[in-house]
C-alpha cells in the first residue's frame, strides 16, 4: 500500500473524491452542454447560506445546505424557462442567498467556522458516515441521470424540436436542476462551494473541446475529473498545499490546454 493510503483520512479523501469526481463530472457534462455553468456555480454557493442558517438554528449544517440548494434549484427552474435567459434570475437568487449567508454568520459568529468551511471544503476531514451518504447520493444522482439521458440529450441539443416531439422539456429542466442541486449539496462540504467549478465544469468543458461524441465525451469528462481530483489530492499531500487549491489548479490547467489550440488556430 502506498504511504499516503496508510492514513484513514487519506483513504477517506480518496474514496470521497473519486465518488464526487465521477458523479459531479457526469452531471457537469450536461451542465456545460446546456450552458448552465452559472446555475451550477450558484447552486454550490447557495449551499453556504443554508449551512450558515442551519448553524444558527443549531441543526446539522448539511441539512440546511441540502434544503437551500434543492429549494434554489426549484426556484431557478420556475423563474427561468429559457436556458439562455436565466442568468439574471440565477444571479438574483445567488445574491439574495449570499446576503442571507452573511447575515446568518454575523448573527451567530460562534459557529460560523462550520459554514465558512463550506466555502473551501475540507476533503481531509471526511469520515466514514459522510462517505456512506456521498455513495448513496452519487448512486441516486447517476441513476437519475441515466434514466433521463435520452430525452435530456435531445432537449439540450435542440429544445424546440424536442418540445415539438412531446418531450416535457420544462419538467426535464427541473429534474436536471434537482440532480445538479443534489450533486452540489453532497460535493460542497468536500470540495468547497467556491471551487465546485473544478469538478462540475472544468473537466466537461475540456472534454467537449476535444470530443465530438456524447458517450465518449462523458467518458473523457469522468477520466479528466478523476485525474485532476486524485492528482490534486496527491499534490496536496506531498507539497503540503490545500487540496482544493491543487484540484482547482489542475482543473484550470486542463481547461486551458484544451482551449488554447482552438484559440491559436482561430487567430
Amino acid at each position, binding site marked *: 500500500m502506498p504511504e499516503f493510503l496508510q492514513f484513514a483520512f487519506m483513504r477517506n479523501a480518496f474514496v470521497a473524491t473519486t465518488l464526487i469526481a465521477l458523479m459531479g463530472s457526469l452531471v457537469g457534462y450536461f451542465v456545460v452542454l446546456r450552458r448552465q455553468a452559472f446555475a451550477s456555480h450558484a447552486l454550490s454557493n447557495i449551499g453556504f447560506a443554508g449551512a450558515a442558517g442551519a448553524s444558527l438554528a443549531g441543526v446539522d449544517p448539511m441539512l440546511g445546505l441540502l434544503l437551500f440548494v434543492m429549494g434554489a434549484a426549484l426556484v431557478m427552474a420556475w423563474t427561468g424557462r429559457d436556458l439562455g435567459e436565466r442568468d439574471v434570475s440565477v444571479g438574483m437568487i445567488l445574491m439574495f442567498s449570499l446576503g442571507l449567508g452573511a447575515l446568518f454568520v454575523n448573527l451567530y459568529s460562534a459557529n460560523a467556522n462550520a459554514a465558512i468551511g463550506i466555502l473551501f471544503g475540507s476533503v481531509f476531514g471526511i469520515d466514514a458516515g459522510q462517505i456512506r451518504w456521498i455513495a448513496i447520493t452519487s448512486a441516486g444522482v447517476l441513476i437519475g441521470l*441515466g434514466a433521463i439521458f*435520452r430525452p435530456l440529450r435531445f432537449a439540450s441539443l*435542440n429544445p424546440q424540436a424536442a418540445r*415539438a416531439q*412531446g418531450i416535457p422539456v420544462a419538467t426535464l429542466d427541473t429534474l436536471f436542476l434537482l440532480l445538479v442541486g443534489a450533486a452540489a449539496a453532497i460535493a460542497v462540504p468536500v470540495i468547497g462551494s467556491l471551487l465546485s467549478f473544478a469538478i462540475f465544469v472544468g473537466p466537461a468543458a475540456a472534454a*467537449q473541446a476535444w*470530443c465530438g461524441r456524447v458517450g465518449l*465525451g462523458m467518458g473523457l469528462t469522468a477520466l479528466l475529473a478523476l485525474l485532476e481530483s486524485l492528482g490534486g489530492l496527491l499534490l496536496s499531500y506531498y507539497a503540503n498545499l490545500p487540496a482544493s487549491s491543487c484540484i482547482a489548479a489542475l482543473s484550470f490547467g486542463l481547461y486551458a490546454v484544451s482551449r488554447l489550440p482552438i484559440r491559436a488556430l482561430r487567430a
Partner: protein
Amino acid sequence: MAEAASASPATIEARGLAAGKGAALAFKHVSFQIAPGSFTALVGPNGAGKTTLFEAILGLIPPRHGEIQVLGETPRRMRRQVAYVPQALALAHDDALIGREFVSAAFQAHRLGLPLPDARRRARAAVEAALETVGASDLASRRLSTLSGGQRQRLLIAQALVNRPRLVLLDEPLSQLDPAARDWIVAVAADLTQRGIAVIFSTHDINPVLRVCDRVLYLAQGRGRIGSVDEIICDETLSELYVTPVRVIRDGGRRFVFADAPVSDVG
C-alpha cells in the same frame, strides 16, 4: 375555402380552426387539408400566425374554435409522426460535437434509460439513412461549429427524419441562408415529398419554393387561404386577405407583391 377531399386520407385536416396565445387570436376560420407527400408553402407576414399554426399542428396549443386532425387523430396523439425543424441552431463557437452525434440525439429520444446495444445499432442505421436523404453524409464527422448555416440546416432536417415522420414542419428555414444554400434546402425539402412525407414549409418569400410547392397556405390579418400558387398569389386573393388593394407583379418567374401600405415581403 375547404379543399375537396383527396382519395388518400389527409395528413392534416383543419376545419374552422382558430388559435392564438393569450387573449388574442392569431387567426380564425382557417380550413385546409394537407395531402400525404405534398409540399405546402406556409406564407405570411410576421405575426400572421405561422408559428401558432405549427404549434396547433403539434398539439402544443389547443384550438380555440374548430378542429384539427393529424393523420386522423388529435395532434397530441400523433406527435411522434410529426417532426419540427426550427429556424436555426444555436451553438457555442468551440463546440466539438459532430454532425452524426447531433442527428442521433433525436432517435427514440422519448424513451427513458440508456440506449442498449441493439438500440445503438438501430440508431446508427437510422442516422446514416437520414444523413443520406438530405445529402449530408459528408457532414457526419464534421464539427458543428465549423459548418455553414446551410449545412447546419441540412443536419437539422436529417435529425427530424431519424424517427421516420410522416409530416415535416420547416419553420422559416431560409431566413438566414445565402441564395445557394436556399436552393439546396428547398431541393432537400422537395425530395422528402418524393418519399411520401408531407412538408409544410414556412417562409416569408414564396419565390424560392415557387417551382416545387403544390399548394400555398397564406395567413394574413387573422385569415387564411389555401390553393395553388396562381389561386393564392394573385391580386384578388391577396387583396381580400389584406382588406386593401394589393397588386402582384410577375417578373421572370418571380412574383412581387405591392400595396399602398406595406403588407408583406413576398417576393
